């Protein structure tokens, strides 16, 4: 049985469409440019838009559009992977806290409180200082950072649903806990959890961009939106698109999803 909690429907639909669009762009975007990512052309550095280079060139004379499309790929895919990680672990633990023995909830709750008492950027810095900046390390770090938040949301949702009558009826029918989780609780959590996925995705885009901007996120020769801004900071004096366009793309990405989640009013 599926019930609707709150008026999340249109809100999360729009966010899902937006995230799907960005994922598609991340997967297909780099195919649209014929330039090699590292190819240093004969163009001057920080040149403006031209027919050959639609967004001009960067601080080494490389094609900005090609690098931008690759940057979007890294930012979106890394953040999506870490969001999937944090939300699936968080949901699993949240449901476990509600359905398993009481000590599970006590333990996971305490752990989540502890993790939330460390600011996310600080936690990332600490972990990266030890494990380095490999792609896996970045995904896992961001995944761990946002797990407590996802856990809290899913626990609250699962608690609310587990108290509803149809769950009691299912229990009285003699259904197993596995059945109740898969057939009764999870389908009803899906909608509100997607809103949470959208939020975590934005948070991780912000965190990854900040890390890369600080020079401790995605490392060259790979490129993401934050590191593009970092390496082209000199271009600011010339108003170069190589520095300004990635800033705009980050803003459009995060503000867009935020507005989609926020627009139909009401808070979670």
């Amino acid at each position, binding site marked *: 049985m599926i019930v609707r909690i709150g008026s999340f429907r249109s809100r999360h639909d729009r966010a899902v469409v937006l995230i799907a669009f960005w994922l598609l762009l991340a997967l297909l975007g780099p195919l649209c440019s014929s330039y090699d990512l590292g190819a240093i052309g004969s163009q001057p550095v920080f040149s403006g838009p031209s027919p050959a280079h639609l967004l001009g060139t960067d601080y080494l004379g490389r094609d900005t559009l090609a690098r931008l499309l690759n940057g979007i790929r890294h930012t979106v895919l890394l953040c999506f992977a870490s969001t999937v990680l944090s939300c699936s672990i968080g949901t699993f633990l949240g449901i476990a806290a509600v359905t398993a023995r009481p000590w599970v909830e006590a333990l996971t709750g*305490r752990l989540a*409180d*502890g993790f939330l*008492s*460390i*600011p*996310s*950027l*600080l936690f990332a*810095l*600490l*972990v*990266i*200082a*030890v494990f*380095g900046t490999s792609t896996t390390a970045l995904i896992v770090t961001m995944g761990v950072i946002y797990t407590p938040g996802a856990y809290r949301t899913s626990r609250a949702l699962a608690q609310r649903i587990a108290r509803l009558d149809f769950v009691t009826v299912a229990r009285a029918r003699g259904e197993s806990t596995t059945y109740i989780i898969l057939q009764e609780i999870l389908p009803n959590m899906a909608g509100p959890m997607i809103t949470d996925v959208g939020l975590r995705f*934005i948070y991780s*885009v*912000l965190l990854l*961009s*900040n890390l890369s*901007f*600080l*020079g*401790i996120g995605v490392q060259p020769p790979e490129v993401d939106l*934050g590191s593009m*801004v970092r390496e082209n*900071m000199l271009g*600011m*004096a010339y*108003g170069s698109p190589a*520095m300004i366009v990635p*800033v705009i793309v*980050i*803003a459009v990405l*995060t*503000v867009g999803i*935020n*507005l989609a989640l*926020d627009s139909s009013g009401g808070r979670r």
Partner: protein
Amino acid sequence: MNRHLVLLIGRRFLAAATSLVFVVVTVFAITNVLPGDATDALLGQGATPQAVAAMRHNLGLDRSVFVRFWFWLWGILHAEFGNSLLNGLSVADAIGPRLHNSLLLAGASAAVSVPVSLFLGVTSAIWKDTVYDRVVSILTLGMVSVPEFVIATIAVYVFAVRLHLLPALADVGSVHSLRQFLSAFFMPVASLALVTLAQMVRMTRAAMADTLSAPYIEMALLKGVGPIRLILVHAIPNAIGPIVNAVALSLSSLLGGVVVIEVVFTYPGISGLMVDAVSSRDVPTVQACALVFCVTYLFLTTFADIVTILSLPRGRKT
């Protein structure tokens, strides 16, 4: 004060102490799970096993994890954070003056952003659903959803590159007059204030709007209370708790902002030190900076919660 209140506050302090223990253990654990240890970094790959063993003994690395944790904790309690792996200097000495700079930056930004955001938040709650409220709401939503460095770089672009009003770097070392002080601090302070402002405005507005929708406000309106008296006497005293809570919670986001802002303006603060230490994997420095940050954060969140507890009407009536 009544017993109930003391109990609540005591419980909050206990929770803060638990978190503190968690933070200290986590910082130690994360920095000690590496397969190799400091000797690899210090001696390089060509080190003989004897040299490694001697060094491990000197650094106390041959003892068990618990013993090392105990000595590390003992050092922290005496403000001894060990020596930097990079230059061998005391980490505590490196942090001291930089912490002062960071606190100055954070304090100045808070002094700007708190009054401004209180004003914006309260007024947009009063004039809810007007054009003014919409504009404030959209602007702050936009600012919440871009990374901190974007706001800082836009500020640099506008004020330093386009208008040539201010230097793009914070030259704190050569401050001798008020003019120099303003020109060195204006940009970092303004950017950091903007970063924290957005969230504070949104939370203040939510708290104030919540209070204004309460039945007793409608009652006061119906019995003919004027608008100014309604806000100052009826609404604000009841909204003060949630608002102070919102402000303190947003101030803790100052910490994340301060890292980025210091790097953008090459401001000589503690986060610049930490970011450099992270890139060079200077673990003792990272540990010390992380602890300073986490303790500050813990202090702010605990403070926010205690203010909320104190502002509960149930607690105020003895």
